[in-house]
């Protein structure tokens, strides 16, 4: 992450006292002490709200999750915690449904992230041309971002309906048989990925576009002097310059796809959501957590799922880090 540092340090010279008649020596001493305290304490006071809120509602619960995971806690009596040790972890790790949801989360993540980022890259390239009404196009492709998960999932639930859905109707025109989207193992994952892709491609395209516009012109000029075609320029100049941004979007999209909740919950627009389909074919980890904690009312196993998610997240972060290191070491050309 390019966190640029200021070009020079703040307050190279200490703030001078206002040039007035010195009132009295004691008073001046007191005032300068106050000044110094103000200077020292203010930055911490300004950043404190973030750390207080994050500590209270982010970090502390995150750690406390681990403690709850070792207890039996029921939705019906939140005050009583009974120590059960590793039982909750035992329970979920031996539950085939847990592993189904792990693999579902992973698969949906891949088939939503990869096409999404590739299309976003292409879109950004298009938007980077000199276009008439460029702001109009950018706004149009960003509109899905204005839609909530809930509305998006519910509209797509209608689009993906087995009989009479917009998609099957269109497929019927071309001569395909209707597909039972929500019931199929692959088709349901595809359907959820399409909702994700629809909502986020424009957003990612704009991030890529921003990065593309920061690529120095000289690089392109040099490349075109060397006789590189536009496609070669895209491959050899644009993509390498975008590597850090691409890596960033991969990290963010991966984390986002681990959290998929609203899309699968509402895909069938009914009561089926809490188990992710009749065969859990599109149950994600978040749905599994929700089902254990809020549908069945067992918060202990739900907390154990949260820790499993943390482990998975660290695993993904590790892989990302390795890829990042690989990219960096093979990155001597630019």
């Amino acid at each position, binding site marked *: *992450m*390019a*966190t*640029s540092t*200021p070009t020079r340090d*703040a307050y190279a010279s200490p703030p001078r006292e206002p040039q007035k008649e010195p009132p009295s020596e004691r008073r001046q001493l007191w005032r300068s002490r106050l000044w110094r305290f103000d200077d020292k304490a*203010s*930055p911490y006071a*300004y*950043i404190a709200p*973030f750390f207080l809120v*994050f500590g209270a509602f*982010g970090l502390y*619960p*995150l750690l*406390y*999750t681990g403690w*709850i995971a070792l207890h039996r806690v029921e939705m019906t009596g*939140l005050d009583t915690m009974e120590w059960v040790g590793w039982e909750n972890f035992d329970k979920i790790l031996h539950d085939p449904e847990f592993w189904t949801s792990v693999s579902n989360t992973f698969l949906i993540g891949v088939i939503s992230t990869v096409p999404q980022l590739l299309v976003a890259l292409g879109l950004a390239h*298009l938007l*980077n*041309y*000199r276009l008439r009404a*460029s702001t109009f196009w*950018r*706004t*149009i*492709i*960003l*509109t*899905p*971002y*204005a839609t*909530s998960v*809930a509305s998006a999932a519910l509209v797509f639930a*209608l689009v993906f309906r087995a009989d*009479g859905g917009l998609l099957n*109707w269109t497929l019927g025109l071309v001569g395909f048989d209707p597909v039972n989207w929500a019931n199929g193992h692959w088709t349901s994952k595809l359907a959820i990925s399409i909702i994700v892709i629809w909502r986020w491609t424009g957003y990612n395209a*704009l991030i890529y576009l*921003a990065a593309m*516009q*920061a690529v120095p012109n000289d690089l392109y*000029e040099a490349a*075109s002097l060397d006789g590189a075609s*536009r496609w070669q320029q895209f491959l050899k100049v*644009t993509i390498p310059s975008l590597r*850090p*941004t691409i890596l960033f979007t991969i990290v963010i999209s991966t984390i986002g796809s681990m*959290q998929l*909740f609203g899309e699968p*919950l*509402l895909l069938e*627009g009914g*009561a089926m959501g809490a188990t992710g389909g009749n065969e859990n074919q599109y149950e994600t980890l978040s749905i599994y957590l929700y089902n254990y*904690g809020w549908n069945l009312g067992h918060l202990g196993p739900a907390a154990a799922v*949260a820790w499993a998610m*943390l482990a998975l*997240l660290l695993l993904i*972060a590790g892989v990302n880090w390795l890829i*990042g290191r690989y990219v960096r070491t093979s990155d001597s050309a630019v």
Partner: protein
Amino acid sequence: MTMTSPTPTAPVRLAPSPTGGRPDRPSRFRMGAGQQMKGGPFAYIALAVVGFGSLLPLYWTLVAASRTQDEVLASTPPFLPGGQLVENVRTAWEQANLGKAIVNSIIVSSSITAATLFFCTLAGYAFAKMRFRGRGWLMTAVIATLTIPPQLSVVPLFMMMSGLGWGGQLESVIFPTLVSAFGVFFMRQYLIEALPYELIEAAKIDGANNFRIVVSVVLPVARPAMMVLGMLTFVQAWNDFFWPYLALNQQNPTLQVALGQLSASYTPDQSIVMAGALISTLPLLLVFVLFGKKIVGGIMSGAVKG
């Protein structure tokens, strides 16, 4: 995520210009770069196809919301809006507690937005322009929190909220999101560029204390970025689903929660569900039509660069 960038990509800057820093002002004196090349018909066709795909589901929400359920579920789906919109909206209003949900959504989104703007501007200013011990790694810590999914802490959070007496109350949704890491980062990036040290020093020499500087120097300079951050935060708060769905209940929902519950009821009437979806989306679409350019610029400038 690491803090060092291997390739020399300049951080995309949000130019403090009244145009919102639209960076692609075409110049005919420079050539060679992709951004100066004129888009051919292919570019327009491709963008039109993607744009059509982006808008189609929204249009279809309107179609379905203005029809009866039988028409929506017919084997040939309708393509034009019908005359049932008012009727469906009225039914959704009664069935799903939508009136209360709208009020709740407005309360939640505006209080989160106001608090985020205030706290993030303060923190962003401190990280951008003040010198203090631990600044570097504290900023790293802020960015690192971006990678923690809310799923990891919802179980204890739910118990905490119930313990605080906020179970099912709006407080349980508002307080955890009072200030965002993204916002701190966003304001910091903006203020690094937009706020010259001379301005701060001049105010110091005039005898202003730190808080006075914030009020009369930093806030005016930060206003354009605060506008953008405010809109992004509002959109996010308005659309938030996971935690509100767990924390709130049928009696006291936000719009998204009401929508989720409407669809999870035993016999959801699809056209009424769509009427609810339309109501929850319409305000934001309006914001997009009015401020689309600003939001686009904000996302492009706020992209946390890798």
